[in-house]
């Protein structure tokens, strides 16, 4: 055999090895990761003491083989930024989103998910304006109507006649339809007289609100979301003036920061939530403990929804669905999705219904 033969033989062997390596690499390489934009408020942690992105980080750390590649998107929960942020992500090829922003942001971004170009799972926007549409905007929490009706029905069970309702004007997309639904339901149910007081929660001034609150009320309902800590200050003032009166909050106040700010009033706060209390749900309690161990703080309830949304997408991707249409079909085709933090059952338009828990032992929740 001449040296030329040896050279060509070596080259052939090299090529065969290269081809085999490519085949093996393609065969055994991890599935291509799919970018998922997590639309949240980057500074929320500094403001409300919890970050949704951390929930995403925890999920990926606990699911290293997941096909999800998380892409943090900060719309600062400002409606004017939400659509550009999402559109920018879509422009770079992101077709799946999870959003934690409030309803006023969701409403403006809704057109972006009218077609199969992108799919969004929302876990914090309860505006009824988002409900009942056969689009690619899915929502894993009940809408505000269901929420408020549940709260009204709960309140109806409480003694008293005069109810002070403080409606946050900072997020009218949520609070307006919510108050309407609440008021209608409560009116339908009977005995409570509502004193409606709109205010911007972030601009709460005790001296301004004290005269009204000093009036005789049997209960307070703070219709505000977005985990604003001032909710705790408001609750304290009311509790200071009416030590025995119950204080109802929305599910979007299930935040340790709010409860800590509430001081003694925490004993009178009633917290509605689509999720059960930590005491009642060991899985939820375990999740919060893991979260605290990893990031050093107590997370707010929105992290539960983030986790559930990620699990749904991961499951869809694992089933081979990698297009928004396929993912939607998969998610809607399964009657009930059992996530690690509770079941989710979509209706045909991608909305969910559900029951509410009313948590009263909030000191336990804070531990």
């Amino acid at each position, binding site marked *: 055999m001449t040296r030329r033969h040896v050279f060509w033989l070596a080259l052939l062997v090299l090529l065969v090895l290269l081809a085999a390596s490519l085949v093996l690499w393609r065969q055994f390489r991890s599935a291509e990761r799919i970018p998922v934009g997590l639309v949240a408020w980057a500074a929320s942690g500094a403001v409300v003491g919890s970050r949704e992105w951390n929930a995403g980080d925890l999920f990926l750390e606990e699911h290293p083989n997941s096909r999800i590649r998380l892409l943090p998107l900060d719309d600062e929960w400002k409606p004017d930024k939400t659509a550009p942020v999402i559109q920018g992500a879509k422009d770079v090829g992101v077709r799946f989103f999870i959003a934690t922003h409030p309803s006023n942001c969701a409403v403006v971004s809704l057109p972006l998910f009218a077609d199969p170009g992108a799919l969004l799972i929302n876990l914090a926007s309860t505006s009824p304006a988002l409900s009942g549409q056969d689009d690619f905007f899915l929502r894993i929490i009940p809408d505000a109507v269901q929420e408020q009706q549940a709260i009204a029905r709960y309140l109806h069970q409480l003694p008293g006649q005069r109810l002070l309702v403080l409606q946050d004007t900072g997020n009218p997309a949520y609070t307006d339809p919510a108050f309407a639904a609440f008021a209608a339901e409560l009116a339908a149910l009977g005995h409570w007289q509502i004193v409606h007081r709109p205010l911007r929660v972030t601009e709460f001034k005790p001296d301004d609100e004290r005269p009204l609150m000093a009036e005789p009320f049997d209960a307070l309902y703070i219709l505000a979301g977005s985990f604003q800590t001032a909710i705790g200050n408001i609750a304290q*003032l009311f509790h200071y003036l009416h030590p025995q009166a119950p204080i109802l909050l929305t599910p979007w106040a299930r935040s340790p920061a709010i*409860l800590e700010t509430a001081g003694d009033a925490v004993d009178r706060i009633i917290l509605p939530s689509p999720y059960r209390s930590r005491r009642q749900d060991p899985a939820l309690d375990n999740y919060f403990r893991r979260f605290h161990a990893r990031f050093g703080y107590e997370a707010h309830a929105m992290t539960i929804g983030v986790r559930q949304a990620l699990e749904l997408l991961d499951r869809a991707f694992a089933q081979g669905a990698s297009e928004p249409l396929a993912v939607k079909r998969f998610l809607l085709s399964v009657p009930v999705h059992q996530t690690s933090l509770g079941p989710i059952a979509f209706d045909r338009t991608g909305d969910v219904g559900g029951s509410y828990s009313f948590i009263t032992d909030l000191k336990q929740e804070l531990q």
Partner: protein
Amino acid sequence: MTWARRTTFWRYNLFLEVVSLALASAILFAGIWFTLNRINQDYLDLRLADAARVHVFLESQLDEARAGLATFADLPATQRSPQVMKLFTAFSDIYCLDRALRVVQIHKAVPNSKVFTGFSFSGGKLASYLQSVGESTDASEILRGYEDDAPSVYIGIHRGDEFCMGRLNLDYVRKFLIQFSQFSGAPLMLTASDGFVMLSGDPALQLPAIDLKRWVETPNASRTLTTGNRRWIPLIAPTGAIGARIVMLVPTEFLDTQRNTLLAFGLAFMSGWFLLVVLKNHRLNRLVMQPLRAFAGKLRDLELGKLRTADADADQRFTELVEIHTRFRAMAEAIKQREQALRDSEKQYRIITESMKDVVWIFDMETRHFLYLSPSIEELVGVTPQDYLAAPFGALLTPQVTDQLQLLWGQRAAVLLSGGSKPGQSYVDEVLHPHRDGTLIWTEVVSTYWLNEETGHVEVRGVSRDIRERKQAQEALFIAKQQAEEANKAKSTFLSNMSHEIRTPLNAILGFAQVLIRDPHLTAPQRDSLTTIQRGGEHLLALINDILDMAKIEAGRMSVQVVPFDLIQLLSETEGLFQQRARDRGLNLTFALSAIPRGVIGDAQKLRQILINLVGNAIKFTRAGGIILKVEPAGAEQFRFSVNDTGVGIAPEEMMRLFEPFSQTASGRELQGGTGLGLALSYQFVRLMGGQLSAQSSLGQGSCFAFTLPLPAAAGAETGTDQARRAVLGLEPGQPVCRVLIVDDLPDNRAPLRALLESLNPQPPVIECREAADGREAVALWEAWQPHVIFMDMRMPVLSGEAATRRIKARAATRPAAVRSVIVALTAGAFDENREQVLASGCDAFTRKPFQAEELFGMLERLAGLRFRRAGDAPPPPDVSPEDLIRRLSASPADWQAEFKQAVGLGDFGHMEALLERIRDDDAILHETLARWAYDYDLEALAAVFKLG
């Protein structure tokens, strides 16, 4: 040493360059990496130390605030006016709390504070701090203020029942952080324990939180976070008194620049190096490799014979290449000259090879093909060299020859390969090669075997020669040889038979003569008659012996009997033999011996025969003067014998044929005596004994015969005794009886021997004889009679003497009590080898027929222990001078003289003896002298006397 992989120097050099480049790159970049790591780590440690120093500032702020709050607490309530409160600039808010941590009084508050009188601080981390005030913690963690969600640090202090709490005004801290960040270029941040950024030195940097668990590890330049489109290295200082984590974001630009600079340097360095390598290899290729390739091309041209040595030298850059070039030119010129010489030589060899009749060829054992055949093959076998080379091996040979050659050549090649033979060892074979015309040609093949170093094949190089004529000559020679051998064999057989046939009757004649002559009662005429018979028989026997000796010499069957003997005695006996004759002829016989040993080793019988012959001739051919026999040393254990006479001499033309058998000189023919065998036998005997008989002669002046013999000294020579020379008269009486068995198939042979032995007996007899006619009868008699001595004829019917001897000896060996018979072989055979054969069969002694009585007596005395009676010494021969002899002869009767002279002239010895008897009583001396000459058949002496007379 051989390299498994061979490459070009240029490639190998390039490989080394690339390897060194890669190695240097690795070392350089490892060094850069190490340096960068070290620099980065030092830099980051420095920046981390800077961050940690912020705590000093914060603690000083905290100390001031604590002192201020203490001052406030010490103020009476009446003095805590708003104006006074403004002085406590360290605090934005000051409260008095009850034990339930509820605000009792607000002394100072930020505008739009959400805290109000009655507000409870009982929740969260602040409550934990407030409950521990006064124990160990100096301030709360940094947290979102209850008043306005702004980052806040609270300090509490107890004064009596009063519990005061102030919220630090962190504006100064924020400004410090901003200024520090701007000054250092590394944004400084204060984070809560959960990582949320509370105060940032760079507000424009949108970094709401730091994953403390992730970044708290030892900072590393490779671990960066990206925010604000820049990459940062987070440095997290240890927790200080303020309860906040200080995070410094070190921009990576500096480190990146540093790294990029070093990498750029490294890349530039390596690029430069690479360029240098490329340039160097380019120059190397141009200045060294190309000349070397050109040189290789010239070598190839040289190999192909195309090189023109007259080419001009190339312009070389390096002296080494110039030297190589110059040397190469010289070498090429030398090779050219040698090639020319080689071509000339090859041409000459080719001319020789192609012109010679012999076929030169080379055969490859591996391929089994001829590599070369000279043109003469066509003449030899009728096939052209081209056809022969094209034909497969064996196609032009007979299958038998092909097989034989393959086997033979294969074996020799194997021997060569195994080292059993040296290259070039030649072999000669005769091969029968078929000619194209169908005939077969005998060829002689001289072949040598070589290992071709280049091919590794064994090559047979040979020359084939037509040997048809030689083969024919050989065949003729072979036939002639066979015929000669057959003739020789027939001659030997004839001689043997003749010897036997002559000796057998001679045995009876001489035997009985010896018996009868011993009879003391014989009359003188009877004795003379018997003596004549005996002498005539002995003369006949001597003649036969000479003829047989000559025949044996010619047949190469004459051997030398080397035994120790007494040289001086032998010479003395010889002298004794001739002294009288010499005197009778008036000659002086002198034996001159000088420094010779007595005992020597040699063939005494032949030496005696030579000396008798030479001295006898000298006396015979010398009329006057003398004869001198000289014996003298001639070197180590060699002796020169010379016989000088003053005789008639030999003519020069006769000298050439002097030693030829049956040739006689003119003087010899004149004397009409002798057989012409004497000198021939002497010459051959001397030659057999290792010498050379030479003769010098001058006609009319005399002759000298001389020879030199090797005669090694013997330890002790066997000497004869006087007794041996004395005549045996008979056996001594009184001896034990000795039984003698005579075995011979011929009664005529048995009878004289028996008569001889019995004539020895005294009274009572000692010897008792019996006879057997063949071997079987002898064995039977041995069994029955147990003879002491057996005279065994060897050639007998029924059972030969040899076979009978073997049987007797074999039986005697198995029977210890049996008589150990002495067996004496008697043979009439012609050749000496009979002796060895006979003795090998077990005989104790050997003698020829006709037997010699004295010899037999000696054997009986020596082997059988018989004792003999011997006569006294015989009276010395009469010392008579030629003149006295002539006078005595003249005194004898004239008719007697005439009759005797006539008898001498006729050589009629019988008549001579009869005539001599007539004068025995008248002149005993004359009788004795003439009788001895007649007895010796010395006609010359006899004739000389009458010529003188």
